[in-house]
């Protein structure tokens, strides 16, 4: 089980949290076509490596926030609040992406 560092409360057990979705999914304007809307609804990056998750601290402060997580090792690389400047992905990921 993971330890999730809530940016408001600090590290807590995964049990207190709820995973929602990949982070930073932008709701398109409602004028877009069916294809773009269904991509917003259903299509995800499904990255093998570092990614940004959207979680909420349901059994704590009830805040939504983003978590850097490695989808293969489940390593947690940090967390940040909504609206904060995006922290870079951990270095390994940069390298993975560069290659």
């Amino acid at each position, binding site marked *: 089980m993971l330890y999730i560092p809530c940016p408001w409360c600090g590290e807590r057990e995964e049990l207190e949290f709820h995973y929602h979705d990949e982070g930073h999914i932008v709701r398109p304007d409602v004028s877009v076509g069916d294809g773009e809307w269904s991509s917003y609804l259903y299509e995800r990056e499904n990255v093998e490596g570092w990614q940004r998750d959207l979680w909420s601290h349901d059994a704590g402060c009830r805040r939504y926030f983003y978590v850097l997580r490695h989808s293969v090792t*489940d390593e947690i690389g940090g967390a940040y609040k909504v609206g904060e400047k995006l922290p870079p992905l951990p270095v390994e990921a940069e390298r993975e992406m560069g290659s």
Partner: protein
Amino acid sequence: MIKRALNRVEGWGRVDRTQEIDFSFDGQWMKGYRGDTLASALLSYDMHLVGRSFKYHRPRGFLGVGSEEPNGLVTWGEGKGLTPNTRGTMLELSEGLKVRSQNYWPSLHYDVKEGLGLFSGLLTAGFYYKTFIWGWRFYEPLIRRMAGLGEGPREVCERDYAWRYCSCDVLVIGGGSSGTAALSELLRGKGRVVILDEGHTEGGWMQGDEGEVEGMEGMDWVRSVWSEADSCDHVRVLRRTTAVSVYPGNYVLAVERSDEVGEGLGPREVLWKIRAKEVILASGGLEQPSTFVNNDRPGVMLAGAVRRYLRHYGVRVGERVCVVTNNDDAYQTALVMKEAGSEVMVLDSRYDVRGLFSDRAREEGIRIEEGSYPTRVRGRNRVRGLGWENLGQGGESLGGREVGYEEVDIVAMSHGFTPCVHLNCHWGGKLKFDEEREIFVPEESSGERFQVVGMAMGEEGFAGGMVSGREAGRRALSRLGMGLRGRMGMWKVGVGGREVEEGEGDRRWDRESVWFPNLWHKPGKQFVDFQNDVSVRDVLLAHAEGFESVEHMKRYTTLGMATDQGKTSNMHGLALLSKLCGKGAGFLGTTTYRPPFTPLTIGTVAGMHRGDVYHAVRTTSAHSAHVEMGAVFEDVGDWKRARYYTQTGESMDAAVRRESLGVREGVGVMDASTLGKIDIRGKDSVRLLNMLYTNDWSGLKEGGCRYGMMLDEAGMIMDDGVTARLGVDHYHMTTTTGGAARVLGWIEGWLQTEWPDWEVYCKSVTEVWSVYAVNGVHSLDMLRDILDDGSLAEGVSPMRVSEGKVGGVGVRIFGVNFTGGLGYEINIPSRYGLWLWRRILEAGEKYGIVPYGTETMHLLRAEVGYVIVGQDVDSTVTPYDADHDGLVSKKKEDFLGYRGLKFGGLRGSGRLELVGLESENSEEKLEEGGVILSEAADLSLLPLENEGHVTSSYMSPNVGRSIAMGLVKDGKSRYGEEVLVGRVGAGGEFETTKAKIVSRVWWREGGL
């Protein structure tokens, strides 16, 4: 029957000979000592035969000494405390312990099923799969009776099982020499340390091995470190505790067993949930058996176990011992058994044998047959003798001719060791194959705070294991910022009176590539997996039938799938299959290691979660009154809701009939407190509501109420309810009972991620208010009676919320109802809930008030065509499908679900639409879930086209007939048409009944 413990040798062992313990095995009373296990105590009486095998009912004895034991499963305790399938090697002796053997009929010493020999030909690899094709029905009862482990208890255990939570800086798993070495370093630091060992006495292999540390005998040194830990405040010592699983993030589950001694016993077992910043895994190695014919006979044991019974328990398991080995380590067993007075010989499959212990054995004059390998064991219930063949220089078979035979009563075998890597693999740690030593070892982990040390890491020898343990302890502390001062000092580590250095005495892995030299030409069974009765022949058969993946072979043969998790079988199975594929032993890799490492009882998993505290329940403030009035409850989410009130044992149908007539004709009251309630404030509140609901909220005036539907972004219905405007920027939202938490989370998600700049705040007030729905023609009269005079500023009216007082307590009265006709929902602060409930019943007496439950509520709302989200509509249904077209604003340019609703096809033909249904026979209630077919459907032409299904169906006394709702293909344009509704008939066959598509509204105030 032997009544004296002749195998107990004077002067040997560490059990407490001053404390005798009486125990019984299969009704026979015997004596052991404090510190014994069942296995050591039985072996002291020379009782080797203790059980029957799983499939073939072959006689079996103890193979090992710890949790790796595949054979010696027993049932202990009786009645409420009965516990089956416990390894006798792990069962600590306690006063009065009663133990039974398992899986025999009619007696342990003579088993009919084995005697018949009927099954051995049948139960080969893949038997179950092959049999499923043709004869399973015939074989199943037979097999169920025959194959099996112990029987489960039939009574409820009254002893407690508990869970405990613990977090620490360093967790050490395993208390053998390397785990203890790690502990000794950790004791010098300040971090919070937990060390656990599954034995009731620490030491692991050290209990049976030679070794000296700093001039102390090995076990004395282990015990001195542990007793120092016992008295150390920052260290928690857990004996009798097995780590059963490790999850990512160093989350470890461990089971602690009670020592079953003393008055007022604590929990029988404790499940520890440990969170450690650093884990040091010192789980040691597993000695592997050799394969030869009848290698499962009682008296054939692992060499390491044999010497541990002697050195630790003072039990010499036999008189004449043949050690079968391919490594130097097993010579320790030969030496110590000779010292204790047994006759000893060694069969070594290697030539030109040299080594720390084998050299000594030669000096002691022990007979060593080099280049020799066992052919078969003679004897049935106990080893009588062992024959052997000669191997070529490369370990190859020379034809299998038996060249020697010796009468022995113990075969002590060792086919080398394999690192015990289960726990390393649970969390995702990888293995690599060491070609030279033919073992799988953990890969050095990078970044993980999980270190594997000693034999578990494939460490060479005693000295190397100690060093790796100490280094891991220091590394853990230094990574935690608690590093020890100074360099690690040297310890004097010795074996057999001689100092050894790191890398020396590599006794564990010193072996040749002798894998199964005699596969082909021996009749009789050579077992690979003892617990699941899988023999070499089964693996050969699986390979011959084309199985070349270890995962497939495992499932086909069931090798490694027993409760011992293949501790003594997996590696041989994998190596054998690899060899059959013409590759090296590690070629095929391993199967997946899954938790638990050892079986754990259901009681431990459940912990204290049983009976009343099995699951948390939510009750309303008037719950006790419902109970008094004979309510039968149903679960809605975690809530207990009154389903109906039964008087003098009336049936549910009768109760619903009485309640529903009572509400319509007089007045009824229902506890609606479980409805989700969300308080919304802030200047952007109406903006929020306009995004959440499909309809327009801009025109709602203060004091007004409005019904709304919420959609997900695909345009499908998610929840519904009434929201009232309490003030300028203040709203009170209600949701379904089950959807409350989801809706609040949904709202918060949008506000926090998409609209963080909006000024609006939401708070769940579900439990703040108790809500009572009063309905029926007299509801307004009754309301007037209970309200304080003049407390109501304005009157009550439909779709309005008014504030008033009852007995001086402020209430909110919502002019809404879910039943049609006249009805109100009274909200009062929860602490007055029970009081108001009683007050309402009192005041309603003169109108003949009827308390009613959810079942009647469902019926009454169906009479007026209201939908229940989750029953009539779900996340595949749009508001148009639900016949709520008018609820979708044509003016708004966005709301959640707005774009989804515009998906092509969502408004075209072919959608399932909500309509009313009436069965042709008004007395017949359609079946909920019943499939709807076209009236013209030909039941003989399959497949039939599914045109929808019945979602709700009731017998309505108010309407005077059965009524139903359903989702029907293009239903809204088919009113008046007839359809067929399917159901399963009394005889289990499919039948249909006729029904007509009608409007959903059957009842109106003032008559139909």
